[in-house]
């Protein structure tokens, strides 16, 4: 089962860098992109063209976006009972203290500033992967949601379902993901 990451980002350069960095770091990640806040909400609510959209394991959300900005998207996610359990990481060029504070007030799971240099950006994507997609315990998806994802062409990975007895397997899977990245 691949890990689904939704990137909400309007800059095509940043989308490309994010895609390339994730490809290097963890080949089991399936990256989806929404280019503005309206598209992000349609994706998350499976509306319009996004009827079969997978439920993301993690959302990377830019703040300054056309149509509906990231603050509004964050507020909508975190007040929606079905969506609020998806870890939502702010990834933005803003380092303004007001943006950091406002994001945590709106219950962002964490706030990251985009670094200027490519190497540092790559390292940040690796940190996101190692922390959010390999170390943290994420909410489990129910069977219905898992079935909706089953068409994705990614090698089968055991251990997505987490239970105490399977913990060791999960850890091994995570190690394998890291090894595969090299």
């Amino acid at each position, binding site marked *: 089962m691949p890990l689904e990451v939704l990137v909400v980002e309007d800059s095509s350069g940043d989308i490309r860098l994010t895609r390339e960095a994730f490809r290097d770091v963890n080949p089991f990640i399936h990256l989806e992109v929404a280019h503005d806040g309206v598209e992000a909400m349609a994706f998350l609510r499976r509306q319009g063209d996004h009827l079969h959209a997978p439920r993301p394991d993690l959302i990377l959300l830019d703040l300054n976006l056309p149509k509906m900005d990231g603050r509004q998207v964050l507020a909508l996610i*975190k007040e929606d*009972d079905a969506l*609020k*359990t*998806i*870890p939502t990481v702010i990834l933005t060029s803003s*380092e303004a*203290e007001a943006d*950091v*504070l406002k994001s*945590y*007030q709106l*219950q962002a*799971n*964490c*706030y*990251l*500033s985009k670094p200027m240099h490519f190497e540092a950006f790559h390292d*940040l994507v690796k*940190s996101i992967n*190692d*922390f*959010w997609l390999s*170390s*943290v*315990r*994420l*909410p*489990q998806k129910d069977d219905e949601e898992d079935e909706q994802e089953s068409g994705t062409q990614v090698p089968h990975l055991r251990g997505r379902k*987490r*239970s*105490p007895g399977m*913990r060791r397997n999960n850890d091994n899977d995570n190690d394998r993901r890291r090894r595969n990245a090299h």
Partner: protein
Amino acid sequence: MLEVLLVEDSPGDVRLTKEAFRATNESVRLHVATDGVDAMAFLKQEGAYANAPRPDLTLLDLNMPRMDGRQVLARIKSDESLKTIPTVILTTSTADEDIVSSYRLHANCYFSKPVQLEDFESLVKTINDFWLTVCQVAA
């Protein structure tokens, strides 16, 4: 100094966490609350905690005497002043309902305590490296 509040009732886990932080990051000052009532007094600077610093990060166990971690989490995340403190669940529970309900209550993230000592040390390092180095936290 980075101020970390550990809310944990097990003396063994308190000791392991202290030692792991000491080995990982010398600028972390670890404060300990041994139950939920104690934790809320610390965060609200009440009673003996009148001069307590505001934590940069809170590590919160779920199962504790007097007031459990779920109640503490709900209070932190519904308090306008406290909700911006990153609150990381660190518990022995691996139950899906605990994971989901913690995220529903706006825990910043959830970790199960590993059984092996080396894994515990590496988890503390992971938490330190991400929350206290990579993330921007509200001043």
